[in-house]
């Protein structure tokens, strides 16, 4: 590409100067145009290009080699634009209906319990984690099977011709018949929706992209990306039996879970909340014991307070 050296002097540079000074500044600007910037040696540029293009192809091959997500543009899934708009409109109507419809059922798992077991009218079983909410519109089961989740839940979906859709703050998770886990705590330290599939295939989408997630795989959703997560699903689903399992997760996120699970307040400074830990416990019946384990892992101290616990540095 040819370089341009014909840029104009920005007018700001002449402000507050007298005529002679302005002329000087303009002359020098024009004169400097003679100093053409050095263009890169063609061979070296070609080498750099070859190197970076080879590197990105290598990376793509590595990605394809692992059982990765197949990313497809949402727009490619819908043959025509009008169909896509119709789909968006339908989604908005569903969203409004969930909010406005007086006949929507709202389920809530109170803090302090492991989980709430719910059976939906289509036969789908939902295990709702402590502190989570699930809204089921009155139309559920007639023209669609859409539910709205705030928090975390494990779904065992009854097979049916009607797709089962879980909407969260930033994602739509669509299935036919399968079991999978959805986690989405908007406003928390790890707020991206996370979907883990136990059996069957699940389609996860944000506004831009859609990915098919296979059994044993997990994905996190952000507004611009769907990212595969390396995880052991059986561990990550330990919460269903009162377990806690985290692989390199921020302590702040774990504290949120402990607070909901045991209905306690846990105080900790940001310096502790921002530290990632890896910890797995199958059945936890006592908040103090679990927090004590975390504190020991990162060598900080903890103590009981009036309504919960505090983690602190010496």
């Amino acid at each position, binding site marked *: 590409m040819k370089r341009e050296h014909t*840029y104009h002097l920005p007018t700001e540079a002449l402000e507050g100067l007298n005529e002679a000074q302005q002329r000087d500044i303009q002359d*020098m600007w024009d004169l400097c145009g003679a100093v053409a910037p050095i*263009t*890169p040696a063609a061979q070296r540029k070609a080498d750099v*290009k070859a190197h970076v*293009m080879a*590197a*990105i192809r290598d990376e793509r091959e590595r990605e394809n080699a692992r059982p990765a997500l197949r990313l497809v543009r949402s727009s490619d899934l819908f043959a025509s634009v009008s169909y896509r708009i119709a789909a968006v409109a339908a989604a908005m109507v569903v969203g409004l209906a969930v909010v406005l419809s007086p006949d929507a059922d709202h389920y809530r798992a109170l803090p302090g319990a492991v989980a709430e077991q719910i059976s939906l009218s289509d036969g789908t079983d939902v295990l709702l984690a402590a502190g989570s909410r699930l809204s089921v519109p009155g139309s559920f089961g007639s023209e669609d099977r859409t539910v709205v989740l705030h928090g975390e839940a494990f779904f065992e979906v009854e097979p049916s011709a009607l797709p089962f859709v879980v909407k969260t703050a930033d994602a739509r998770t669509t299935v036919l018949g399968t079991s999978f886990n959805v986690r989405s705590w908007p406003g928390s330290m790890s707020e991206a929706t996370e979907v883990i599939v136990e059996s069957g295939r699940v389609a996860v989408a944000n506004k831009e992209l859609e990915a098919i997630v296979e059994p044993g795989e997990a994905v996190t959703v952000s507004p611009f*990306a769907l990212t595969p997560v390396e995880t052991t699903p059986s561990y990550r689903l330990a919460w269903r039996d009162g377990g806690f399992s985290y692989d390199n997760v921020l302590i702040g996120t774990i504290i949120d879970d402990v607070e909901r699970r045991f209905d306690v307040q846990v105080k900790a400074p940001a310096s502790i909340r921002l530290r990632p830990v890896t910890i797995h416990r199958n059945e936890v019946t006592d908040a103090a014991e679990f927090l004590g384990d975390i504190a020991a892992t990162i060598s900080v101290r903890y103590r009981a307070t009036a309504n919960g616990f505090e983690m602190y540095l010496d």
Partner: protein
Amino acid sequence: MRSIPDEQFRSWSHGLLRSDEKSYAELFEASYDALFGYALYITHDQAAASDILQDVYLKLWQVRETIDPERSLRALMYQMVRNFALNHERQRKRHAAEAIEDDHPSVRFDTVNDDELDAAKLKENLQLWIDEMPQRRREAFMLSRFEGLSHEEIASLMDLAPKTVNNHIVLALQHIRKKLDAFREMESSFD
């Protein structure tokens, strides 16, 4: 890079988001020369500038999924080059024992006539006068003069107030004026 419309950059951003190799290759071709020039203002070392660009383009691919098409990809790339180049400079200063590279290949005069000789000599001097400016002044001036960046764009890139950018550019041009006067005076004293 100035001549490339924002629309085009947005289209490349979307291309990167969907890991499109073709967009990436186009962006490389369109942006390399200008970014090379910028890396060179900071490092004065052509080999280092190519290494820096290699790192920048690899990094760009690694972070492609986090690119926000609503924010300027052009500004992001200038910022990445600046960060990598300044980092390179810091490391180089730590290993200060290295030999000083020959940054200014001398102009060959043997086959040019007097007028051309004057022009070549003036150009060579201009380059020297630009090079001897303080680093940040030279950077602001070069981005304005040869990349066509606005005061606001330079200010945001270099983390300065737009007013300060303007001061740098005016002072740079006044510096060259002074040098030129002195140069002409010296030339005429030989006549």
